[in-house]
């Protein structure tokens, strides 16, 4: 059967047969880099179009429908326009940091791709501290945003960047606690083991109400971490024009825009891996027949389906809820999400120790 696993295996066997192990590894690295860049480009196009279509439907509009059938080439045309525009650097900006910031943001998004299991045995780097790696790298993205805001030499940018700093530092906590609940239940930080532990059912169903609460907390926290509405204070068009990327234009702006969507994709893949079983098909306990039927759907389809479901959920939030004020944002985190997630983690620990989960 043709699967991503067999393709990678055949490629590796062929490379090892033709070249020495070092050269084979180098070629594999190059292939992985090319695939990652292709994935980013495709995701950028698809997610922006999806967002515009979802927004249109929610606001009882039609959305882009002129370029190509149903407007499917709209984002490609927009990208072409952005490539041709001038990448302006303000005269009084810190030129080095200003030009570096978009690449820092993109690099963080790329690093996050490494430990994600896209399908059965299809993973770039199955590191044994996968979840820790993800939570530590994802907090780096604030550096790129602060860098952009500071180097722009613009009040709006600086305010946006500062808000973003306060926001990401706060919401890292509850996202971390939500991730920890699954780590407590699984007893491992490795992505492949977390997925394997959900073979007889996803944690969302196996872990009773505490895991459902953790899932909700995770979704709220990552929405804030990716600077998406209702937590888009760092951009806040009506107050700060565009926040930290006010001064960016052309392809440098496009990189920020792309990084936002890549970050959404990545947090949704992590959410899908932790709570919805990653590439694992829907298995229910000992229903052998049912589980066997579910196995016929390829694991990559399961993974992408779950990820896009979560992405849709986050888009749904964006087009439903109004933006919070800064004080409301911090109140929500420190007075509500953090105490709830601490208490929730305690409950999950009790469940894990007593073995009450399925």
């Amino acid at each position, binding site marked *: 059967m043709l699967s991503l696993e067999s393709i990678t295996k055949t490629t590796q066997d062929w490379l090892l047969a033709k070249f020495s192990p070092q050269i084979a590894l180098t070629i594999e690295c190059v292939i992985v880099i090319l695939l990652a860049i292709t994935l980013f480009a495709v995701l950028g196009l698809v997610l922006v179009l999806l967002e515009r279509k979802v927004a249109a*439907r929610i606001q*009882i509009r039609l959305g882009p429908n002129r370029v190509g059938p149903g407007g499917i080439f709209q984002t490609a045309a927009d990208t072409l326009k952005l490539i041709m525009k001038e990448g302006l650097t303000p005269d009084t900006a810190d030129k080095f940091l200003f030009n570096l910031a978009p690449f820092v943001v993109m690099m963080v998004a790329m690093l996050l791709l490494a430990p994600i299991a896209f399908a059965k045995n299809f993973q770039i780097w199955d590191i044994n501290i996968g979840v820790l790696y993800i939570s530590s790298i994802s907090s780096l993205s604030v550096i790129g945003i602060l860098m952009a805001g500071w180097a722009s030499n613009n009040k709006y940018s600086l305010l946006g960047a500062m808000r973003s700093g306060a926001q990401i530092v706060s919401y890292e906590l509850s996202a971390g606690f939500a991730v920890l609940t699954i780590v407590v239940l699984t007893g491992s930080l490795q992505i492949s083991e977390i997925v394997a532990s959900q073979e007889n059912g996803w944690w969302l169903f196996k872990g009773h109400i505490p895991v459902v609460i953790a899932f909700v907390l995770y979704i709220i926290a990552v929405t804030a971490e990716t600077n998406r509405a209702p937590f888009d204070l760092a951009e806040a068009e009506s107050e700060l024009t565009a926040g930290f990327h006010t001064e960016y234009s052309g392809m440098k702006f496009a990189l920020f825009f792309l990084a936002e969507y890549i970050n959404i994709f990545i947090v949704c893949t992590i959410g899908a891996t932790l709570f919805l079983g990653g590439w694992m098909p829907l298995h229910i306990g000992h229903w052998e027949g049912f589980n066997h039927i579910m196995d016929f759907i390829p694991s990559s389809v399961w993974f992408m389906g779950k990820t896009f479901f979560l992405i849709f959920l986050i888009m*749904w939030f964006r087009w439903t809820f109004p933006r919070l004020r800064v004080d409301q944002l911090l109140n929500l985190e420190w007075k*509500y999400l953090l105490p709830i997630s601490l208490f929730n983690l305690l409950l999950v620990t009790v469940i894990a120790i007593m073995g009450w989960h399925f």
Partner: protein
Amino acid sequence: MFLKDYISDVYNGVTSLLKGMRKTGYYFTHSKEIITEQYPDNRATLKLADRFKGEVVMPHDEQNEHTCTGCTACELACPNGTIKIITKFEMTPEGKKKKAIDSFIYRLEMCTLCNLCVAACPSDAIKMAPNFEHSVFDRSKLTKILNKPGSKIKEGVE
């Protein structure tokens, strides 16, 4: 009591958010709710809102009669001098002189579509029409005479 308030806060917050999501979810799944008009394509079947204000018109019935008495209430109500009414005197069959309009001049290029003239009219002689394709090559074409040639006031309207 603090804990009770706290929990009810969380409960109320979550339920109100879910209520909003239910509404937008309904719109997302029901494409018949879409209100976008694809204007140049559906020009023939275009549906505009009832309250859409495009220009002032004076309705005439089949006998070419309108209900404008020439009281100039609309002219006085207009904030920017869009309307100019020229009156004349007509002889009634009884031999009395009666005031009537000679021409109701309406300058669309000066009109802000504020609806004050329609609100001021005591005999509902003018109303707002949903026409919006007003572009012309000559500005003088925007000065319109609203009463049709040969029209007269309806019987019984004072």
